[in-house]
């Protein structure tokens, strides 16, 4: 949609995308990512937060070709090119799942559960699918 890329409103808001679900079982992870990519054209201040099962979205070695799904996980690596550089992952969510930063396919900032509220409070719009 070309018209999306011509937003001239000028206003800059802080958007937080909260990701809480596993990829593939439902479409939400993919469609959250698509919103972030489209949103990048609006020159807003974008952060992504991965908590609960959302941390699985960043798991290395995803191979959804096994179930004939597109492998969109590599797109998280391309987020930098869209100036989306603030990726936050909650430590407790990783730990409960037996995961560590080494299991993730991108560099992230790991934060504690008790820091999540402060992050949310810094943003104007919270989108969680």
């Amino acid at each position: 949609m070309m018209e999306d890329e011509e937003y001239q409103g000028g206003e800059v808001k802080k958007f937080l995308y909260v990701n809480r679900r596993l990829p593939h079982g439902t479409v939400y992870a993919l469609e959250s990512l698509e919103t972030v990519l489209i949103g990048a054209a609006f020159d807003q201040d974008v952060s992504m937060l991965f908590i609960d099962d959302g941390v699985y979205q960043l798991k290395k070695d995803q191979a959804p070709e096994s179930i004939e799904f597109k492998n969109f996980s590599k797109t998280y690596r391309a987020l930098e090119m869209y100036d989306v550089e603030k990726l936050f992952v909650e430590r407790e969510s990783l730990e409960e799942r037996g995961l560590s930063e080494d299991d993730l396919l991108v560099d992230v900032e790991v934060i504690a559960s008790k820091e999540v509220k402060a992050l949310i409070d810094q943003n104007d719009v919270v989108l969680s699918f």
Partner: protein
Amino acid sequence: MKLAVLINEGPYQHQASDSAYQFVTAALAAGHEVMRVFFYHDGVNNGTRLTTPPQDDRHIQRRWSALADEHKLDLVLCVAACQRRGLVDEGEMKRNSKDAHNIADGFRISGLGQLVEAGIEADRLVTFGD
């Protein structure tokens, strides 16, 4: 205040579209502006004119169309979600070589950018889903 609403589920299966409808109705009654209702994911299924719910049940699509008509609401269906789920207007029908369209009065199909724009321009964005 200027509000925007996001609906992520289709009609009847989940309460999301019902809750959003009641919320929008109440917001309008309180004198607020609802600048856009954006339908994403299965939410786009709210926009088909081909439903025939039981006569003693609510008609979710017609209720939205009537509200849009009365209050000049902007009901936007996400184009990518529409393509995955079979929601089609005349333009999409031609572009994708389909032989029918099914979009209801008062709805339009547009890009995901309309959701981001709603997030920017509205004072509050409220999401309804599963």
